[in-house]
């Protein structure tokens, strides 16, 4: 991993102007990403993970809008580009992998044609060249007999195979950043494991930077280098995966970890964080977790800063857990 970040997100804030009010779906999100690194973004459903990904891509559609913050990629400020300039970046410098491989591919186009469409969006290429490139890309993601699949339609492939194809398509223009939004959530567990291993291998081999969005901490544990824990549109804790899993600083992370079945002693009841996640329309003032936090105090009504809690670690809490302690 090189030290210079490929992607730098600072104070990104995205709001949906709805009839019911303004929903702050992404709120002051900052992180950076280096080559060859996988950053996990983990959080409950509705915490703003997908909107974070879309905001980085410049794909938030009205009534949503990135209201402040900056996304910088290899020195270019993406948030300052117009739509035409941004489109040239999308799919070439920064690509996305979606959750549901069943619906991500166009049902009426052959696999080869879908590669061709993505290739020719960024450089002149003939169909014949596109087929060669596609076959190689499909081989790389572990599809056997790729040439025979070129003329297949998506419905002729299994779910796992389709997600491999999606990944191959997303990678085909050799982007330096990939945002994968729950790419294995729709797949069954054995296939999920294979795809995760394949993703990890490709990130290492190609030295790309990946944001891996998931609601599943165990996936983060096996795959990611660093993790950002999202709650109510904010990243509440950010740092190396092994450190955060072993020694979480934010009470929300503590709760999340305690609610993973694998970590609970046999037969004991699973821990649940009391209450539900607040709506982005109506976030509590100050620390948005304070309404569910057992440690909440008067101070928590003022917003906590995203402060360093250890080397390379940050948390958004007035009372981060004892460093090195086990009282959580």
């Amino acid at each position: 991993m090189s030290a210079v970040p490929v992607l730098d997100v600072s104070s990104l804030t995205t709001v949906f102007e709805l009839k019911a009010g303004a929903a702050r779906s992404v709120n002051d999100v900052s992180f950076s990403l280096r080559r060859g690194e996988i950053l996990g973004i983990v959080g409950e459903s509705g915490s703003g993970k997908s909107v974070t990904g879309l905001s980085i891509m410049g794909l938030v559609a009205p009534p949503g809008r990135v209201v402040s913050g900056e996304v910088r990629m290899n020195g270019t400020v993406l948030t300052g580009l117009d739509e035409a300039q941004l489109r040239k970046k999308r799919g070439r410098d920064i690509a996305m992998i979606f959750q549901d491989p069943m619906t991500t591919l166009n049902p009426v186009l052959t696999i080869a044609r879908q590669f061709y469409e993505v290739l020719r969006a960024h450089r002149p290429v003939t169909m014949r060249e596109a087929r060669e490139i596609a076959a190689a890309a499909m081989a790389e993601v572990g599809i056997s007999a790729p040439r025979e699949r070129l003329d297949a339609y998506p419905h002729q492939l299994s779910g796992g195979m389709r997600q491999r194809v999606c990944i191959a398509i997303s990678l085909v223009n050799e982007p330096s950043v990939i945002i994968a939004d729950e790419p294995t959530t729709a797949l069954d567990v054995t296939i999920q494991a294979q795809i995760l291993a394949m993703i990890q291998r490709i990130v290492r081999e190609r030295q790309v930077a990946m944001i891996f969005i998931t609601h599943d901490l165990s996936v983060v544990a096996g795959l990611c280098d660093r993790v950002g824990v999202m709650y109510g549109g904010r990243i509440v804790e950010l740092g190396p995966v092994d450190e955060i899993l072993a020694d979480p600083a934010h009470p929300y992370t503590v709760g999340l970890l305690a609610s993973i079945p694998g970590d609970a002693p046999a037969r004991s009841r699973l821990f649940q964080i009391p209450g539900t996640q607040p709506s982005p329309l109506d976030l509590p003032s100050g620390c948005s977790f304070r309404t569910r936090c057992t440690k909440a105090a008067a101070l928590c009504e003022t917003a906590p800063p995203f402060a360093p809690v250890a080397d390379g670690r940050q948390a958004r809490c007035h009372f981060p857990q004892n460093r090195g302690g086990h009282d959580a």
Partner: protein
Amino acid sequence: MIAFLIQRLLQGAAVVAAMSLIVFIGVYAIGDPVEILINPDADQATREAVTQMLGLDQPLWVQYWRFVQAALQGDLGTSFVFNIPAGELILERMPATLELAVTATLMAILIGIPLGLIAGLDQERWYAKSILAGSILGFSLPTFWVGLILILTFGVWLNWLPVFGRGETVSVFGIEWSFLTLDGLAHLVLPATNLALFKIALFIRLTRAGVREVLPQDFIRYANAMGIHPARVVSRHVLKNIMIPLVTVIGIEFGSVVAFAVVTESIFNWPGMGKLIIESINRLDRPVIVAYLMVIVVMFVIINVVVDLLYAVLDPRVRLGGSNR
């Protein structure tokens, strides 16, 4: 594929057979053609002679059986009025109607689909809303009224376009065509517009609905996320998906223009099948009516097969040949 065609051929034959019976009985039930054909002052003997000559003294089933036997040999009966084979009469008029129907359908496709795309893609803009509002007019105005307004406006007041007949025609392979001469084309404009208006409105609606359905889908979001140009997304990714439902409707609409161009052909005096059938009904020219309806049935059967084939071409998920189809 072959199995599919054979299956559809058999199905089509069954439909044609069933329809022939229904049509024959239906036409048999309406009035006595002899009354209309002969001089009202004619005596009983003449009356019986004519009835016998036309075979109308036979019981219904004998008449039907004779019709079927003749029809299988390509003889759809002889017009009572013109005394020439009914099939020939219809085929002679068919090119005029087909010409009108094809022109109207092409207009509807070339105007309706692009307008529908605009209405669906930019739905919040004023022009998209205007297109949509306009399509309601196209739906609700009666064809004959629009026809008259067209004649009044472009024929009478502005005097830009002819409103009567086919104009100058050119003979190709023994068939007369209007669209090959400038005068013929001018004659084609108003009746074709008249017929196309409803279809344009229909295609606008269908295309718009298709666009609204396809746009939010993941594969369109993915195409955008991969940097594909919006125009390309529409032309390759959206259009191909919405063509599937459109093709069915285009097929059915084409059939119905051919079958029901009656009003427009009458208003514009277009010498097609529609005008022929109206005249034949007025004169109770049974063989022509039956022959016309049979031609229409066969045409619909063919259109359905063609639509199914197109379906399979457009939608890779459709498999031809299954017995469930």
